[in-house]
């Protein structure tokens, strides 16, 4: 599963335009405390957060998550999107709740594993 599959599975909108969407997705991490994410998120995770402050881009870079999903149709600051494009971090907007985002990605990853 790669980042562009995440956008389609969620019926979400890819908000960054300059970033390659072929990064591999290996799991999901849901957390809104950036300090916690910095020490616990893993490379390849889809990071689901309601946090839209510019700093999420730096945290994503540090942790090497595959992309960021902002759930519940939350507005994202232009400055955050701009920085994400500059730094090569995909941000996807979804109208779904964080819970539903997790369920859908879990199902997709499970189906992918079972088909191997």
């Amino acid at each position: 599963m790669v980042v562009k599959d995440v956008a389609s599975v969620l019926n979400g909108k890819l908000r960054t335009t300059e970033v390659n969407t072929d990064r591999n997705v290996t799991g999901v991490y849901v957390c809104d405390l950036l300090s916690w994410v910095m020490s616990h998120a893993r490379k390849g995770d889809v990071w689901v957060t309601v946090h839209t402050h510019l700093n999420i881009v730096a945290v994503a870079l540090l942790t090497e998550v595959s992309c960021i999903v902002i759930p519940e149709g939350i507005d994202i600051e232009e400055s955050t999107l701009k920085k994400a494009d500059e730094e090569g971090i995909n941000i996807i907007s979804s109208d779904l709740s964080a819970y539903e985002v997790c369920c859908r990605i879990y199902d997709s990853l499970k189906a992918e594993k079972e088909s191997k």
Partner: protein
Amino acid sequence: MRYAVDLHIHSALSPCADNDMTPNNIINMASLKGLDIIAVTDHNSAGNVNAFIECAAGSDILIVPGMELETREEVHLVCLFPDEKKALEMQEIVYGSMPYMPNREDIFGQQLLLDKDDSIVGSAEQMLVRAADIGIEEAVKIVRSLGGVAIPAHVDRNSYSIISNLGTVPDSLEVSYLEISHTCNTQDFLQSNPGLETYNFIRNSDAHRLGDILERESYIELDDKSVHNLIDKLRA
């Protein structure tokens, strides 16, 4: 007497601040803007406080030793101390509460330690922009026990603020001032946040760039211009 203040300014020690946020630049800018009292409040650190105090010696600008603490809840508190020694004691406590994580300059920026002549004398090695393992209530108590005062920072913002992260200012919290950001309209803010009328508000810049430092627009009434009087006023 009314004094023009800006009590939330970052130096080049904060990785998100410009590298030209040096003692001389900030003090000169504050002088140009006609400010009387400024505080240097870097993230989780007071490493440049001494440089600012020495640099300001002989000028009319009063420096308040400070830091911007990030609590466990990721709430920012502007912490002001009666002297450099107390600020450094707080720094020691904060550093001790964070597991070692080196800074990534390529991602977060440089954390420069400077002297009074703006020379770089070192870097803070560990990552400063993250949460200390100190809860809000405990943080306020510690700051007060050091003779200082804690002010919830930029409460009108939707991140790193006590309102955005906790939804409210807990009644038990020993604070009497709340900080609002430069562009906040206090009346609109109080309308959207009823129940906060009992607090005093102070406007600071949270400057990360020289141009962000306040003009003469935020004032505190004091008997005379001293760190001691300022802290007493903000603690009351």
